[in-house]
Structures are given as structure tokens and as C-alpha cells.
């Protein structure tokens, strides 16, 4: 019917699409390099814009309004975020979703490290065919180009006010400390064991919190290492697993959405750490099982104290039976304390410990007065919590603040219920 259409064969159309795609890629490349230049030159200006008298600019108030409306987040957390910097190591299945959310939510400066190029077989978890709808980061147009470049372009497209730093190199012992030292929070989105140990060790050396995610097959894992007294990767796993037990997505496969979920959770934890809001997943590990749709969060061992600063719940029971003068400090949140507590314990939640030290001194003095005349030494101070992690942090804090004799009850109330009083309720 249409005479023009008759002449157009499928191969003509394909040729035209190809040539259009090529010019589109060229234009996109040009845009991303211009954006990079603009970012670099605007860096100082932006710094000013963000923090005029500690206030957000009008544009920022509008852009981040949904964050600002959250009572538990608000202006303060958003301002923290804008001042903070996050390094994402690996721009693959985990790094891609993490980066998009970090850029969108307004982390001030984001570094991306990866030496890889985009391949077609990455795109099921790291890409979407239509850039405009890119939830996943890399696009077909970027196949064969650097993942860092591609990820940076996507981040800039979402939020041009965020400074994106491209590290198009492998993360090696020779450059690791130098790169990492410029950032506040590190996100481990790598895919192999040696990188994970190296990143962990650098974080310990530099004192940086590490948000670590992993995904394989239909399962994912997530935790925050080296944060707020919590353990590091090497603390938990001093011996690396045998290579035969280290499967890779490239060999064993992975369902694209699984690293997508874990990567988003990594962004969430990085935001919490950067803004100092909520309870980051430190000393706990989140396990995600996609097939059964189950998420489990498990406490991890924590060993902050020397052996002589800790006693078992059984030993504590013996000391009570002997009538030893002591104060038992319960550092759980008060709503936990109200559920169940040991008799005559003093509840000061860990979070408010530093303001309430005088209460401990008073309790110790009262205990001493009660024991007057029996020629005993000064009363002991024992600290307990639900499972024995917070109590260790509390004892560490007490040791540093003049209560050198404070002792932790290992395993907390759960161990009391398990080893001493099976009728003691657990929750």
C-alpha cells in the first residue's frame, strides 16, 4: 500500500538501527564525559551550595523531600549523607543496584572501582536493554566498555549533583590503601575470596566500616564488618575456605534478582552507617534464601574482651549463691528489660550508658553500705544483655571510664536460660 515501505527490507531496517545505535552510543559517551567535566569543575561550588549555614539548598530540599519528611531520617541524616563518601568495589551484580541507590539518595561522593568491561552475559543482573528504564545499571550500548564508565554514566544520569569518581583499575595491594583512604564507608561488591580478605584488611588498617554482600545461585548474605566494635571478616573467618568451596557466579550461576536484592540492602546499610541512623547490621548476618522466600538474621560471635573480663552464667550463679556483693547491670533496651529480667538488676541501655554512669557508682556504693562490717572487698560489677554482644561493648566502655573491674556475662540471658535456669523465658 505504502510505496516507500515496500522497498524497505528487514536488512535495510537492521542497517538503519545499527547506524542509529552507533550515533546514539557516541552521543551518550559525549554526554557522560561532559557531565564528568561539569562535575569536576562544579565540585567546590557544590560544596558551598550544600552547606550554606548548614542548610540544604532549595533544589536539594525538593529532590530529597521524601527523606526529609521521615521523622527518623530528616534533614540531619540527609546532611550527613551529603557530607559523606562511599567507595563501591565491584560494579557487577551487587555493585550496580547499590550504586544506583547511593547516587539517587545523595551520598556526597561515590567512588567506583572495577577493571572489567561490560559483557552481554552480565546484563541479566547488571543491565536493562532500555537505558531510560535502567533499574539495572549497564546497558547493551555499553557492551565492551568499562563497567566503571558505564556505572558512572548511569549514576550521573540519575543525580548530577553527586560527585562520581571513576577508578578504572583492579583493586590491588599496591593501590588499595590509597584509594580507600579517601572514603568514609566501603561497600564490598566483589566476587572472590582473595579480594574480600584484602578489602577487609584495608578497612581494619584504616578503621573504615565495611558493608559486605555476597550472592550465589539462589542465596545471598549480608553483614557490616569493622563497625562500632563489631567483628571483621578475618575475625570471623581467620582461615580462608578451600578454593574448591569457593564457587563463583561465572561457574555456578546466579539468578539476577538475588544480587539485586542484596545490592539494594548493601546501599541501605551504607546509608545507615553514613548517616548514623538505625541499627546497622554489625555483629549480625542476614541470610536470604530466594527459593523459600525466607530471610534470617543471625547474631555472630563477638569477642572484644580478654578472658579475665568475662565469666560464664554458671559461674555468675555460683557467685550469687555464695552471697557475693555485686551490682548486675542489664544493658538491653528498656522495652526488652520490661519483658523479663533477672532480679535486682539495674537497667541502663547501652545507648544511654555514657550519660548514666553516676547511677552505677550509686548502686555500687549502696551495695557496699549494705555489706558494711562484713570486711569484704568492694562489690563486683557484672554486665548482662540478651546474647552477650552488647554487654561486651558495655564492659569495654566501662573499663575505659574508670570501672576496671566490670565483667561480662558470656552469652547473656540466653546462656542463663540454657545453662542455669531452663524456666527463665527467652524471646
Amino acid at each position, binding site marked *: 500500500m505504502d510505496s516507500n515501505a515496500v522497498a524497505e527490507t528487514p536488512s535495510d531496517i537492521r542497517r538503519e538501527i545499527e547506524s542509529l545505535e552507533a550515533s546514539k552510543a557516541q552521543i551518550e559517551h559525549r554526554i557522560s564525559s561532559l557531565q564528568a567535566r561539569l562535575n569536576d569543575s562544579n565540585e567546590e561550588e557544590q560544596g558551598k551550595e550544600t552547606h550554606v549555614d548548614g542548610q540544604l539548598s532549595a533544589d536539594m530540599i525538593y529532590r530529597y523531600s521524601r527523606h526529609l519528611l521521615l521523622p527518623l531520617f530528616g534533614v540531619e541524616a540527609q546532611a550527613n549523607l551529603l557530607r559523606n563518601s562511599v567507595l563501591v568495589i565491584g560494579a557487577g*551484580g551487587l555493585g550496580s543496584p547499590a550504586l544506583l541507590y547511593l547516587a539517587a539518595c545523595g551520598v556526597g561522593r561515590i567512588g567506583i572501582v572495577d577493571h572489567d568491561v561490560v559483557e552481554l552475559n552480565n546484563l541479566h543482573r547488571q543491565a536493562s536493554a532500555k537505558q531510560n528504564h535502567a533499574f539495572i545499571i549497564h546497558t547493551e550500548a555499553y557492551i565492551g566498555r568499562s563497567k566503571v564508565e558505564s556505572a558512572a554514566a548511569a549514576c550521573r544520569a540519575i543525580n548530577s549533583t553527586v560527585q562520581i569518581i571513576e577508578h578504572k583499575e583492579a583493586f590491588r595491594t599496591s593501590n588499595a590503601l590509597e584509594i580507600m583512604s579517601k572514603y568514609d564507608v566501603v561497600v564490598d561488591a*566483589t566476587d572472590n575470596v582473595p579480594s574480600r580478605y584484602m578489602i577487609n584488611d584495608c578497612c581494619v588498617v584504616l578503621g573504615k566500616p565495611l558493608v559486605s554482600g555476597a550472592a*550465589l545461585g539462589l*542465596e545471598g548474605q549480608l553483614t557490616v564488618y569493622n563497625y562500632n566494635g563489631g567483628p571483621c571478616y578475618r575475625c570471623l*573467618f581467620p582461615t580462608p575456605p578451600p578454593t*574448591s568451596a569457593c564457587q563463583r557466579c561465572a561457574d555456578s550461576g546466579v539468578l539476577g534478582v538475588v544480587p539485586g536484592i542484596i545490592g539494594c540492602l548493601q546501599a541501605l546499610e551504607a546509608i545507615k552507617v553514613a548517616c548514623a541512623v538505625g541499627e546497622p547490621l554489625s555483629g549480625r548476618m542476614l541470610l536470604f534464601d530466594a527459593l523459600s522466600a525466607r530471610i534470617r538474621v*543471625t*547474631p555472630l560471635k563477638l569477642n572484644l574482651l580478654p578472658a579475665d573480663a568475662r565469666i560464664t552464667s554458671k559461674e555468675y550463679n555460683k557467685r550469687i549463691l555464695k552471697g557475693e556483693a555485686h551490682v548486675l547491670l542489664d544493658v538491653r533496651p528498656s522495652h526488652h528489660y520490661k519483658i523479663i529480667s533477672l532480679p535486682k538488676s539495674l537497667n541502663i541501655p547501652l545507648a544511654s550508658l555514657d550519660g548514666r554512669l553516676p547511677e552505677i557508682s550509686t548502686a555500687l556504693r549502696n551495695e557496699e553500705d549494705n555489706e558494711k562490717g562484713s570486711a569484704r572487698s568492694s562489690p563486683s560489677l557484672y554486665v548482662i544483655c540478651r546474647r552477650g554482644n552488647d554487654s561486651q561493648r558495655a564492659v569495654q566502655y566501662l573499663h575505659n571510664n574508670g570501672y576496671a573491674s566490670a565483667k561480662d556475662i558470656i*552469652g547473656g540471658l540466653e546462656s542463663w536460660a540454657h545453662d542455669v535456669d531452663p524456666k527463665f523465658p527467652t524471646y
Partner: protein
Amino acid sequence: MLLENSGGLELLCNSVKIHEVNINLEAEGNQKLTMKHLLSWVRTNLIKERPEMFMKGDTVRPGVLVLVNDCDWELSGQLDTTLEEKDVVVFISTLHGG
């Protein structure tokens, strides 16, 4: 007792993740069941292939987390942890992919 494998360990047990098991203490010649006994029982009775992917020596291989009733076994005494009826023991191989 309920045993659960994940993080790839289920592949050693015909891809079955959750095992409800009954361990006859008398047949095992023990008064009480500890994690040490349980590990050797699992190795003999549940693991179908490559036992070295599960154990090294008399304990689990490096990179396996063990939870007893949802708590890291390092907090309950590792191999000496005493187990009771209806306890839940979970073995998780740590993942490294991304």
C-alpha cells in the same frame, strides 16, 4: 532434631536443605549429644558426596558458620555444645560471589 544446610552445603546432601532427624543416643553409645557427635553423625548419615567440603579434622571446614538455635555456636561452646531434643542446628557456607 532439625538440621538445615545452606550456602551450597545442601548440594552435598542431594540438594535437600532441611532434614528432620532422630538420633538414637543409645545406639551411638553416648549419654548426651554434643556438637562433636552430631558432626560425625551428619558426616556418616547425611553427607552423600565430598565430605571434605563439610568437615576438616573433627570440626567444620573453614568458611562454615554453625548456628545452634539461631545463635553462633562460638557463643555456646562450639564442639562441646550440648544438644537437646528439638534443637535446631544450621550449617551455612559463606558465599563470595557477586
